């Protein structure tokens, strides 16, 4: 086991020296997780908004299921996507297993319930506030959903942020469907797991620091955005 101080020093040198191996892993992680969050948001926010305004038999059950899916273990999602994409699975012909695309698919499925469930909550509160105005205006459901999404846009950043946090930090799903292949599907979390088991603490530590830095930066950006919106009474 390396000395912790020395590991930190090496990690810092890798970060500031823009070590290509390190930064290629960081970039792939960001590409996969941001891609997954973008797709999950594009699907999950309208889905959440529809659930917020729609009233139908079994709605309560759907909401319970959606909330429960927020806590799905990443390895279970990974296993599901693995079965779908494996050679004998229904989408085996696409040859997507062990590619970044498979990782995006897995993380999208992981993040979608989080974005949808949190969006539903945010938009439902706003929908109650706007209900009489919408009804008096004769606004249809599509118009109501579009208005609500637009007006809740700053509050919805919290849902997107929660989804990004889940995606960038998970290891189980991308490990199973990506295979942790060097320079192909190796992302920060899977690299940390692998390098720690190999005793290469410096690289694991450097990636850990990047992960923390990303989490802090994203939170600062979103808080700044929300504070600006709140000052204008838009949030």
């Amino acid at each position, binding site marked *: 086991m390396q000395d912790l101080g020395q590991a930190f020093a090496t990690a810092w040198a890798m970060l500031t020296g823009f070590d290509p191996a390190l930064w290629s892993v960081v970039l792939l992680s960001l590409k996969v997780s941001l891609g997954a969050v973008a797709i999950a948001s594009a699907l999950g926010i309208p889905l959440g908004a529809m659930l917020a305004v729609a009233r139908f038999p079994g709605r309560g059950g759907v909401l319970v299921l959606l909330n429960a899916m927020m806590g799905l273990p990443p390895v279970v999602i990974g296993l599901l996507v693995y079965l779908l994409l494996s050679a004998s699975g229904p989408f085996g012909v696409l040859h997507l297993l062990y590619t970044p695309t498979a990782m995006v698919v897995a993380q999208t499925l992981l993040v979608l319930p989080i974005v949808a469930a949190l969006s539903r909550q945010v938009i439902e509160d706003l929908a109650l506030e706007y209900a009489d105005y919408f009804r008096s205006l004769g*606004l249809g459901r599509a118009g109501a959903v579009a208005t609500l999404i637009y007006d809740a846009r700053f509050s919805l950043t919290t849902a997107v942020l929660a989804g990004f946090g889940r995606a960038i930090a998970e290891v189980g799903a991308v490990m199973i469907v990506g295979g942790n292949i060097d320079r192909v599907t190796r992302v920060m979390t899977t690299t940390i797991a692998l390098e720690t088991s190999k005793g290469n603490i410096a690289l694991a530590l450097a990636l850990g620091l990047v992960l923390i830095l990303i989490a802090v930066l994203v939170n600062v950006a979103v808080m700044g955005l929300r504070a600006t919106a709140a000052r204008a009474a838009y949030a």
Partner: protein
Amino acid sequence: MLDAAPQHRLGSVDRAGIFPLVAEGLVFEAGGRRLVDGLDLRLDGAERVVILGPNGAGKSLLLKLLDGLVAPSAGRIAWNGRPADMAVRAATAMVFQRPVLLRRSVAANLDHALAARGINGVERRQRVGDALAMARLSPLAAQPARLLSGGEQQRLALARALALQPRLLFLDEPTASLDPASTLAVEGLIEAARHAGAATVLVTHDRGQARRHADRILFMQSGRVVEDTPADAFFDRPRSAAGRAYLEGRIFV
């Protein structure tokens, strides 16, 4: 007060065919209580109607029933002999006691309502500008609507309703939480709506306001209209004991 505003452009648009508005045997029940109790009503669109009555009489609920915001438990509402349809919806507007304003700028609030009613871009911009000028909100057009004062917010809500050029405007205690100056400004806009050809149905607790804005008084008590009479007659000699007590400021049980 608002004489400089370009009211003529909002003009009187006769999307006729909504009057007479007839409610028959209207009932609304909730929690085992009958909040509107077999109410009959006819509006011809020519008079300024004010609904008076104590809290809990069903005044605001009646407005919501007429505007289709809530469905009656029993009875029917007919607009020129037919149920409410898109033409009726397009010819009515409502202003609430507490303005419901979008988390957008003042101008964008007006724009949204007009876009929702299918008004095209050029006319929309024209109507937004006219409504802002009428409500004297033009300098605040780009401000976030929810940062306006209470009076300005209610003027914006009224301007938004007026921009829709309604034939019938429902007003649910629009000045209940406003100071006298803001009340006067809002009342000026209500008058402007009338000049533009809108019939008004106003719910208020302000007897002075009722005198200023009523041709006809509906006095409600316990979910029923107990007095439906010309305004002058109501204020001079109310027929019902409840109406007399209300005007004298006595408690009537």
